[in-house]
């Protein structure tokens, strides 16, 4: 049951526990975390679940793979950074227990 910490744009911290195998988007939506929308239902089609992976965790989660749909959508996200991922593409397994994700100022 991995634990994930979401840090809002205003600094507010939300710590949630999810079933192993849930995605970052599931964790946010199921726990009413503000600032992550996930309009498409979590199928990598809208880029409104944009998050920044805490640099300490980037090796574990990996970056979005160039040429794939996630990276293609992320390039248009507002304030896209090296640590950007789409939360629906991060699967929360036990080795991501303690993951820290930061939420951008907005989704669109």
């Amino acid at each position, binding site marked *: 049951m991995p634990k994930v910490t979401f840090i809002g744009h205003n600094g507010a911290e939300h710590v949630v526990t999810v079933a192993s195998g849930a995605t970052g988007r599931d964790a946010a939506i199921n726990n009413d975390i503000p600032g992550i929308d996930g*309009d498409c239902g979590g*199928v990598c089609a809208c880029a409104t679940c944009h998050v920044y992976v805490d640099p300490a965790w980037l090796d574990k989660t990996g970056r979005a793979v160039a040429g794939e749909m996630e990276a293609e959508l992320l390039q248009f996200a507002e304030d896209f950074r090296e640590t950007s991922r789409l939360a629906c593409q991060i699967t929360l397994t036990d080795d991501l227990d303690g993951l820290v994700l930061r939420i951008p100022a907005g989704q669109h």
Partner: protein
Amino acid sequence: MPVKEAIKVDVNKIPLDEIDVSNPYLFQNDTIGEYFKRLRKEDPVHYCAKGHSGAYWSVTKFNDIMRVDTDHKTFSSDSARGGIALDGPGARSESSSRSGAPDMGLTMFIAMDPPKHDEQRKVVSPIVAPHNLETLEPIIRERAAAILDSLPVGEEIDWVDKVSIELTTMTLATLFDFPWEERRKLTRWSDVVTSSPGNGVDSWEQWQRELTECAMYFKELWDQRVGGEQKHDLISILAGSPATSNMPFGEFLGNLLLLIVGGNDTTRNSITGGVLALNQNPKEYAKLMNDPGLITDMVPEIIRWQTPLSHMRRTAVRDAEVGGKKIREGDKVAMWYLSGNRDSEVIERADEFLIDRKNPRHHVSFGFGIHRCVGNRLAELQLRIIWEEIVTRFRKVEVVGEPVRSLSNLIHGFTRMPVILHAL
């Protein structure tokens, strides 16, 4: 066959291969829903060999639409192949009313594929970034309030002209920092782009003349702002960014027109459509007036319900299978958003307008994938503001006559809707 009057046709009696959902009259007389319902059930990926829009495939279910929309490598938006509308300016169909349109070299990133699409979208996207929307909100609210305060109460007015058009034009003028007194030109030019002889203009010559006037007007604004102080309106942003400051004039105009069109009749028709939906569903209107906090969730439901763009079209660049059907290279494929938004296998109680439904943003009106509507949050912002300002002023916006729907298989909207405003 054109169905010009609102005859009661039994859709189930038409042979499947004679069904032509590109017929604009079906949208104007609002019988189109029955056709899509049948296709979703019996032939969700349906081929029409010889319709109003020539030969084309219809994709009618939500998940199939998503599959096509997100597969831009197979399904191209490029204007050189025909662009993103069944009857668009680039369409090659002989039966299309747009054949004969002069080639003004208008190119817009909506009708491009990567890599060109990506470069241009990235430039425009910041205009609707969260911080920009925050700056825009109070200006839009102030101007929306002024529009609503100027309306007569208790007498019949045309909501489309006096409110929907007025509001959306106002937002566009704000976005472009367009000369305020001339802002109705934006509406006119937007309407011209999607018109054709007999439907908005008298001739292709007039179409070209008006769009050339538009081009010259924007060129002047561009020249005024290029090299000027860094401002935040769209023209300044385009003039100031290396990716776009040297773009060919046809491209500059095309992208501007995209933003005007994209932000114009779509938002306009959502504003009108929301009023109509609430009138047709009085329990929902009562819910709203009882709890204006529902506005935030009502807005995406309005956008789903209205589906301001009935379809977006793609062209297959290679053979592909969709929903068990074999689509061939070169085939035209229409994603019918209007149908996807009524797909009850994906959306619960899809045929009902419910302002407090769960996951109201789970709809296909903005599309999906790399072309997903770049202005979607701006559209929602406008709708939210207008409803917040309406509920504090009017007990009811009452529709008092039959609205007139647009004659189009692309723009799902209204040209007229008589209403009477009732004070609180």
